[in-house]
């Protein structure tokens, strides 16, 4: 008994692991569909409430030089430079570095006195320093003989005070907690009324590297990693008519699956229970055609479809797939297993051919018909190449796989949007499986029960 339990446990464990491994791509697809643009390729799956600022250097050895720190906030700018009297108004010489939308530059050894300057945004917009009220033709900053000067009350600048004291300072009213990490230590900062996080420390002279650890509320962290926007972008993008693609796929897959099942059932019945000339030879020829790779037929099929003028129509997308030899074979073999006595009894009772078909063949073959319907539906739902070539790019009949391929570029892929689209595309198949699973079970158990 104990041995059985252990065995069962390991079987279950093995099966669960197997299921997880098989479902990994699906999990990845779902998670990626919800991720913010640019986060899809990251291994981060749980939102982190902690983030880091850039690293800064605090330099006691330079404290008696003149240093001016300029800071300018503009998250949408592509480039920001500074031009002024100190660099002969050369707008390309001093480029500010971007740190989460805060542009910053430190200039050393500037001469004491009046300094005129302007920021140059995106290479062409000359603008006054918005944080410096002292301006005439340009923004003006008065620089003394020694010390550190700034154009504003800095957001995240640590200040060197008298007596080797350092005031670590970071502006962030939105953060839950802010720490400073330096020399392997993490120090808690206190928030003031203006939203600045500060701490004052005394340090020996030297050069130190430090960075701030920023703790955000869980909701903010969650929103920075996950979003529902990808689904909105897929559904409501004017350049990506999702509903049209989806409808076309539905028409083509359903049409193909229904007609294939119907024709295969009719053909299968004839091959299984009827006698006609060259029946076996014809069946063999049909089976032989299964051995030829489908791609070989693509060019002649395309030529025929083109001759018929069916390019950019549902006909080209559905009709060439109706001659499904595999389905015919499947149905033939299945119907062969239905006892002849049933047909004979029906005939004796006076049933017509149509009644025999409707009362005996159709209900008894239902599980296999559903299976064929599903297989064909799945095949056509994901058919890419044929549906691509029989539709010109301006065709209103393009299907979902063709549409989703638009997210895949030559070098890069919009994984987040593509996966959001793929989430919608698995829905019909999932629904069909749920609805049709009863027939599968019936099909599997039918032969096992004796009347």
């Amino acid at each position, binding site marked *: 008994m104990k041995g059985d339990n252990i065995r069962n446990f390991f079987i279950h464990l093995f099966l669960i692991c197997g299921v997880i491994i098989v479902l990994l791509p699906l999990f990845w697809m779902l998670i990626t569909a919800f991720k*913010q*643009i*640019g*986060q899809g*390729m*990251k*291994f981060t799956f749980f939102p982190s409430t902690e983030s880091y600022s*850039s*690293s800064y250097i605090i330099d006691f050895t330079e404290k008696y030089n003149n240093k001016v720190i300029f800071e300018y906030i503009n998250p949408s700018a*592509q*480039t920001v*430079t500074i031009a002024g009297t100190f660099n002969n108004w050369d*707008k*390309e010489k001093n*480029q500010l570095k971007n740190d989460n939308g805060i542009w910053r530059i430190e200039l050393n050894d500037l001469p004491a006195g009046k300094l005129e300057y302007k920021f*140059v945004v*995106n*290479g*062409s917009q000359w603008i006054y320093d918005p944080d410096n009220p002292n301006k005439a033709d340009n923004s003006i900053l008065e620089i003394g003989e020694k010390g550190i000067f700034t154009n504003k009350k800095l957001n995240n600048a640590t200040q060197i005070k008298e007596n080797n004291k350092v005031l670590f300072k970071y502006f962030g009213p939105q953060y839950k907690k802010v720490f400073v990490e330096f020399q392997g230590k993490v120090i808690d900062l206190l928030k003031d009324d203006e939203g600045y996080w500060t701490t004052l420390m005394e340090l020996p002279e030297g050069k130190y*590297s430090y960075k701030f650890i920023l703790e955000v509320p869980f909701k903010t962290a969650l929103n920075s990693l996950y979003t529902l926007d990808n689904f909105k972008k897929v559904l409501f*993008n004017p*350049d*990506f008519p999702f509903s049209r693609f989806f409808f076309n796929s539905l028409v083509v897959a359903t049409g193909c699956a229904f007609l294939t099942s119907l024709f295969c059932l009719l053909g299968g019945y004839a091959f299984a229970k009827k006698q006609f000339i060259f029946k076996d030879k014809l069946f063999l020829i049909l089976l032989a055609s299964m051995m030829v790779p489908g791609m070989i037929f693509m*060019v002649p099929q*395309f*030529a025929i479809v*083109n001759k*018929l*003028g*069916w*390019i950019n*129509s549902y*006909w080209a997308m559905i*009709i060439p797939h109706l001659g499904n030899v595999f389905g015919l074979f499947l149905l033939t073999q299945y119907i062969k297993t239905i006892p002849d006595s049933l047909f004979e009894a029906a005939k004796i009772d006076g049933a017509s*051919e149509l009644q025999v078909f409707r009362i005996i063949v159709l209900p008894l073959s239902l599980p296999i018909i559903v299976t064929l319907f599903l297989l064909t539906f799945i095949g056509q739902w994901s058919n*890419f*190449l044929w549906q*691509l*070539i029989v539709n*010109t*790019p*301006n065709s209103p009949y393009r299907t979902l796989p*063709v549409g989703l*391929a*638009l997210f*895949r*570029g*030559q*070098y*890069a892929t*919009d994984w987040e949007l593509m996966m959001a689209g793929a989430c919608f595309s698995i829905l019909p198949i999932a629904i069909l499986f749920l609805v049709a699973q009863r027939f599968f079970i019936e099909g599997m158990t039918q032969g096992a029960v004796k009347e």
Partner: protein
Amino acid sequence: MKRKKIVLLIPFLLLAFIFSCAKLKKSEDEKIILKVWETYNNEEHNVFLQVIENFKKYYKEKYNKDIEIIADRVPFDALVDNIKTACLARINPDIARVDALKVIELAYHKVIEPLDKLPNFDAKSIEEKRKDYIEAPFNSNIIDIKGEEHLYGLPEQTTCLALFRNLDLFREKSAELKAAGLDPNKAPEDWDEFIKYAKVLTDEKKNIYGFAMANSLWFTLPFFNMYKAEIIKKGPDGKKYCNITDERAIYAFQRKVDLYQKHKIEAGAWRAGAIGPDQGFINKVYAMILIGPWMIQRFKDSGINYAVSLIPKPTKQDAIKLKLIPENATDEEYHKEITTSTNIGGNNLVIFRNSKYKEVAYEFINYVTGKENQIFWSKSLGQIPINLKAYDVIMADTAVIPEIKIFMQQLLFAKVPPLVPLYGLMESDIVNPEMALALKGDKTVEQAFKDAAIKIEQEILKQVNE
């Protein structure tokens, strides 16, 4: 009897149904209509529609004629197959934007028009036309078929590889880099220096590697190009032959193999199932990778701190060893002769032979690749211009992000990949598997390239030379 009639009637009805679906051909409109198949993304597509509007105005002013241009987006996957089947059915467009390495395939299939044969070709020679464009992307359109060289398209968008550095990983190892005499704020200049940087940055225990690379011919071309190794060469008889067993080619790839096997600074990112270079770069697993400008926005979106720089160049010793410079060359001569190098990718615009308005189509693609439009395109999308006059304007524009300027610089040292019709097959079925065997250590580089050369001669070049 009645039943028989019904049985006979069914196939007849089915046939009648099928043929009734056939559409009647519409009579053709007299108005000039150009159809363009393109593979742009949403953002590019919208700018392209603007370009079309601009061209319509330009055309109206110049010729006082109205023109209609229809731009249709096609998925990049299977584009060439789509074009081939469309040509078969004569439903192809007038112009298509195709991968630079696929132009040759269409030229060999004789479905695209040699532009230099058009009456309104606006240069005295291909050579003269070349002066307007960045050389390597332009050269991808010059195709030699049976000894006759023609220009089959114009470059429209180009790309290349450059070196990306993950600055966070560089900063974390800042002290160690300084201790090794390396500047953490600078990029390596030559491959020996690169190895030094990567060794410091590699921390196998933490699964962090200094470098990661893809294993494909296209991604290896910068190595071949920097050592001036030509994989396919044209012989004095005009025939093409495989030159992959040349000393320089072997040395170039041995350098790449050594990064993994000897120096152990490469992560093995080329192996099946390994974390790819770009994904590892985003996740701070790989410190340096070779990748193209298409990843700039994605890296920005993912919030990583990175910098772009030129691909390192060969060392002086390597250059002397491979006779790229004389033994007694000075440092000045070395720096002048030996440069960084890269490959090119991107897209070209081609015109189809059965287009009714080939000359108008040429006017359009000339406009698209012209100075004014390239400046507009580049500024709107932050992409590299392919027109040299536009190149100078964009290079001087401080609004352009510095990363793009690095790529623009890198492109001046680019070379076009080998132009053979079955390039894709050569890469995926012949060279890549042999290179993988060499990287794994299952074959020496010499043996792998010898085997590849035999297959290339038989499966690729035999058809070209016949």
